[in-house]
């Protein structure tokens, strides 16, 4: 070996590959395996790529489903990188390169259009799709659907509530306007007065903007992902005004431009804020960390943008899809249905803190006991909004958080047209990603 495959380009890829494999084998016996072999007897091995779940509830579900399949399949969990960007990049790169060793993919709620449009994931067979749809939260199904077809199965979900302190405020504010004036009053009295929200230049900021736009009666892009809809009901402008108002009011935490969910939690636990907009993980955390504040910690629906218009908070969560290149699609679809069975959904919620996607679970007494805010969460989830539905979501989101950063630089009149152009560029693959 050596010389003869140096000229790479002239040879057929398969032979170059073979030569490389021989080289690899010379150094390590483990190289160039073509993945677990398919044929023969025994269960097929399904590779499940999912974010690293710390509580072990996914691993438990995978083991139980493997056992319950009666030898049909065995699910192997493969941890993706910790960051969402890293997860997407790894899966997309491998699928783009035709990697057949992925079977089940854990997709963030915003990725289904991208993976479906690129033919990286397989649509659900009609009959099984109907089973998935039954009893599943509508907005989650919406995130899993592209061009009218169900491409992934909602696995778990999440959304934000308003957390407030009843030692500082009598009742929770109904609107942003009310919340900001209450905060201003508290500021005058020298009491804690920050509104804790995600203002750093990242996905969480886009989530905030999306909630505001949808609650003002608009949308970022149309359902088919082809048009920018920020002008509908003037919602884009109204949303920008809320950001502007907060950033220029005493309610703005000085570190707003760098705050993510965890910094918000810490600021609230440090007693700096009467209000916090965040996911339910802050509740058990406050209970463990600061009992004194926890005593006064209450939750309420997310404040409205307009008093007479219901709020549509952005939905989050994970959908499970089958790789279009999987060699074991049938088994993978079966496995996903098992993984989202009610008993596993309950474990994920109770042990891992991930709210279920099946509405029936919220009505179980046993669940309500460990999930006190079930009613408000369920209501918000049922009326939730989804983020811009386009294969170019990643670019759209980056454009939004980039254009609107830092929050105190937002100029509603000037930024709206800029935002519209940039989002339009992004959905037509014309723009650069920031």
């Amino acid at each position, binding site marked *: 070996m050596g010389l003869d495959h*140096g*000229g*790479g*380009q*002239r040879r057929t890829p398969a032979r170059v590959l073979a030569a490389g494999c021989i080289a690899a084998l010379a150094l390590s016996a483990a190289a160039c395996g073509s993945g677990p072999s398919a044929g023969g007897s025994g269960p097929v091995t399904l590779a499940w790529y999912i974010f690293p779940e710390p509580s072990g509830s996914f691993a438990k579900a995978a083991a139980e489903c493997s056992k319950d399949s009666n030898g049909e399949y065995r699910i192997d969990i493969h941890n993706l990188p910790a960051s969402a*960007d890293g997860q997407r*990049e790894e899966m*997309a*790169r491998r699928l*783009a390169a035709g990697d057949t060793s992925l079977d089940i993919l854990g997709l963030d709620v915003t990725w289904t259009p*991208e993976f479906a*449009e*690129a*033919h990286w994931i397989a649509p659900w067979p009609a009959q099984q799709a109907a089973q998935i749809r039954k009893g599943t939260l509508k907005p989650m199904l919406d995130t899993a659907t592209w061009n009218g077809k169900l491409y992934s199965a909602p696995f778990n979900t999440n959304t934000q509530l308003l957390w407030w302190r009843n030692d500082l405020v009598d009742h929770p504010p109904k609107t942003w306007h009310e919340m900001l004036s209450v905060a201003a009053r508290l500021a005058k009295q020298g009491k804690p007065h920050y509104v804790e929200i995600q203002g750093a230049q990242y996905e969480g900021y886009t989530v905030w903007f999306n909630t505001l736009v949808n609650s003002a009666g608009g949308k970022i892009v149309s359902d088919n992902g082809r048009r920018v809809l920020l002008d509908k009901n003037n919602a884009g402008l109204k949303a920008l005004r809320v950001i502007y108002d907060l950033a220029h009011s005493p309610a703005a935490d000085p570190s707003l431009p*760098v705050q993510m969910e965890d910094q918000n939690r810490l600021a609230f636990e440090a007693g700096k804020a009467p209000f916090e907009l965040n996911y339910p993980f802050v509740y058990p955390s406050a209970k463990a960390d600061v009992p004194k504040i926890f005593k006064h910690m209450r939750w309420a629906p997310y404040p409205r943008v307009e008093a007479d218009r219901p709020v549509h908070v952005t939905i989050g969560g994970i959908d499970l899809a089958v790789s279009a290149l999987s060699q074991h699609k049938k088994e993978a679809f079966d496995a996903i249905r098992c993984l989202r069975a009610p008993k596993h959904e309950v474990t994920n919620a109770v042990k891992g803190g991930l709210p279920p996607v099946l509405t029936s679970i919220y009505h179980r007494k046993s669940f309500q006991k460990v999930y006190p805010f079930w009613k408000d969460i369920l209501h918000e989830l049922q009326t939730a909004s989804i983020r811009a539905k386009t*294969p*170019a979501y*990643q*670019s759209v989101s*980056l454009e939004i958080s980039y254009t609107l950063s830092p929050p105190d630089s937002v100029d509603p009149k000037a930024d709206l047209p800029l935002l519209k152009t940039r989002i339009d*560029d992004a959905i*037509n*693959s*014309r*723009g*650069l*990603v*920031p």
Partner: protein
Amino acid sequence: MSQAEVAAEAPVAEPRRRRVLSERARAERKLGWLLCFPAALVMVAVTAYPIGYAVYLSLERYDLRFPANTAFVGLANYWTVLKSVDLWWRAFGVTTLITVVSVGVEFVLGMAVALVMYRTLYGRGLIRTSVLIPYGIVTVAAAFSWQYAWTPGIGYLANLLPSGTAPLTGTWSAIGIIILAEVWKTTPFMSLLLLAGLSLVPDGLLDAAKVDGANAWQRFTRVTLPIMKPAILVALLFRTLDAFRIFDNIFILTHGAANTRSVSILDYDQLFTAFNLGVGNAMSVLIVIAVALIAFIYIKAFGTAAPGQEVRR
């Protein structure tokens, strides 16, 4: 072989030789081509072909997220890149700034290190070995060392700063750290190339200048530097082009956050965040053009001393 020799010999000798271009000379010529062919083929195949392919891809809307919408769009992708003031031109400015400052600093430091390596009386081997370590070390490994050094709460350097400052999150301080990492890593390369130039300066000439009453600085600027000019050109050219493609240090230190993206990092993001091959390849072509321009300007500015250039009269 001196330039004069080549120039004088070539035109006269060629025709006479050609007439009697012996069997042997022809065989030599053939062997020469044959021996160079594999290397040339690999180099051309892996650079010229892909860059041609990049030009082709850059003329298309080619987005892995929209495979169905692939279409010829002419120069639209170039327009997208070139009109992007706050991304492309900012990255271009950052890259240029890093290049100019780091090459400038490296030139001064590299010259000093080269002088030490050349003239030092003690531990010459030890000095050369230690200078080679930054040259050889994996850039990513060194970048992690700098990153942790400047991370508040972990690093010895960050702890010297007032608490609460995170130098890697501010644009200017982050660029400063990137330049520091770049200078540490590549000054040795610069100094080795300059050392080669220093060794060409005849001691006799320096002694003569000394006898004529020139002080050390005058001897350096009037004798050493002019003789070193070709070596300086090579060192500056290599390092400028190398600095312009900076990627590793920025990727590890900031990953382009706080507006510290170089053109290479920006291009990488178009490819792997957006999977937008059309725009990404347009940017790749623009980077090649920029590099070619820099090389061209250097060679024009420094005259014929450019390496590998055909000597013409």
